[in-house]
């Protein structure tokens, strides 16, 4: 079943200049979709458009059978989609626990159970729950950011470059966590520079360049594809 679908998306930061041209992407329930491509291909813009931070000038975004095109981010969040931005993705002066509580802002029920699940997923956050997020290392911040997004129990998680700026060891750890989260039933779209790793864990991959769809195939097929290897996986 297709859980999230974006069709013929044209979007940009100003009315005159578009970044994305006629881009489409499909996410099957329970799967991981990775979006790769060179810098400036429009990968992050695609996530922002899906989440409603940018309004597409053309195209349609649907969650299951519901049209969510043009909804504001807080409304999109209410529908069960969460988004982790690439940079500035924690509240630095708030504690870890408060960051997670802010993730649950739209929940009016008791979310203490969910909080404990997040601390089980990232034990180090539980040990430091009173510490300010601004004092954490890059890897720990990424965990806080993902934890914040997971507080609403989303159906779909949008991750923008979760490995950016992390050491190789931390990258492996974060990717392992991403697979754990996926196994718990969260469908995901991941935008990554680290294309090889992103395709390895992906059920399906999309290659974007210059704001357009170039290729899409299963993660393994893309990894085996010679042209993709030469252009995007560094030989």
């Amino acid at each position: 079943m297709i859980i999230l679908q974006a069709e013929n998306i044209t979007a940009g930061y100003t009315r005159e200049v578009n970044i994305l041209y006629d881009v489409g992407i499909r996410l099957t329930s329970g799967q991981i979709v990775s979006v790769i491509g060179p810098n400036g291909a429009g990968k992050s813009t695609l996530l922002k458009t899906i989440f409603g931070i940018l309004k597409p000038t053309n195209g349609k975004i649907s969650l299951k059978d519901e049209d969510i095109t043009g909804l504001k981010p807080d409304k999109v969040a209410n529908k069960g989609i969460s988004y982790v931005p690439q940079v500035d993705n924690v509240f630095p002066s708030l504690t870890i626990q408060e960051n997670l509580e802010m993730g649950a802002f739209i929940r009016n029920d008791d979310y203490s159970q969910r909080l404990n699940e997040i601390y089980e997923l990232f034990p180090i956050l539980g040990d430091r729950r009173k510490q300010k997020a601004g004092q954490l290392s890059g890897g720990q911040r990424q965990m806080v950011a993902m934890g914040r997004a997971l507080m609403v129990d989303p159906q779909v998680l949008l991750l923008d470059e979760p490995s950016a700026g992390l050491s190789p060891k931390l990258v492996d750890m974060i990717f392992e966590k991403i697979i754990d989260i996926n196994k718990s039933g969260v469908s995901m779209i991941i935008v990554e520079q680290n294309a090889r790793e992103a395709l390895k864990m992906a059920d399906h991959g999309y290659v974007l360049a210059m704001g357009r769809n170039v290729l899409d195939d299963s993660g393994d097929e893309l990894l085996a594809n010679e042209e993709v290897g030469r252009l995007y996986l560094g030989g």
Partner: protein
Amino acid sequence: MLELVVYGIVFGSIISLGAIGLTLVFGIIRFANFAHGDLMSSGAYFALFMVTGLLSWIGVPDTTFGSLSFGWRMLIAFPVSMFMVGCVAIAADRILYRKLRNNKSSPVMLAMSSLGVAFIIRMLILIFWGADSLFYRPGLMRPALELPLGVKIRPDQILILFVVFSLVVLLHLYLQKTKMGKAMRATADNMELALVSGIDTERVIILTWGVGGALAAAGGILYGIDVQVHAYMGWNFLIPLFAATILGTIGNMWGALVGGLVIGVAQQVSTAFLLSTYKPAVAFMLMILILLFRPKGIFGGKQE
């Protein structure tokens, strides 16, 4: 000298109430509100209207509490004025500032428009009350308590300190413990991420203006109780307000409190050496010194 320090603390605590509102608003919408001083006067005058007008017509007795200079009328007028000025601040945001923000106007445009709001408030006060200094209770007695070391302090002033610190503690608890308080801090930290988290940032902005306006009103009324009420009081507050806010690091509530106290004490103590008309200049000098040598304030530069 010690007495000047004590008076400085009283004056400084009043400045702090304004500075905290200023710093909260700045923290969230990055906007220097030049109308904040006049919000303080509008609170003082609204209370004056209630104490000498409305409540006396209704027939609330004009008795005072013990050795304090006010009674039931002020007790009613104080929270009502805080509420009303909170509404005025919110209205100014909805009618004016929000439109400018949505049009992506520059910070200078916003600051200038707030200067306009300041003039409107001040002119309304001049139209209705004139330029004379007024008191909540004319011809009042001002009994002073004698503290050790020969410091004289009025019961009113002790109460002012008590009210200021209660309000600050309440605000602290609100920001630390409640969902909306935490959302206010989150929005000040990172407005975009707050939106992404599903926080209704417009509601947070409204709330911030409400709290800022209410605190400004409280500061204005307390000044009226301590000294007097006059149309230009808000204008005179403006430089100490900004000096306190910058000294305490913009956006930092406790910083604004400390900044207010420092500025208040500095202004009062300076009268031992200088004519008291130079008081605003002292605050201005301090502000320049801070901007030159420690532009991020005393609590700045630690985070991140």
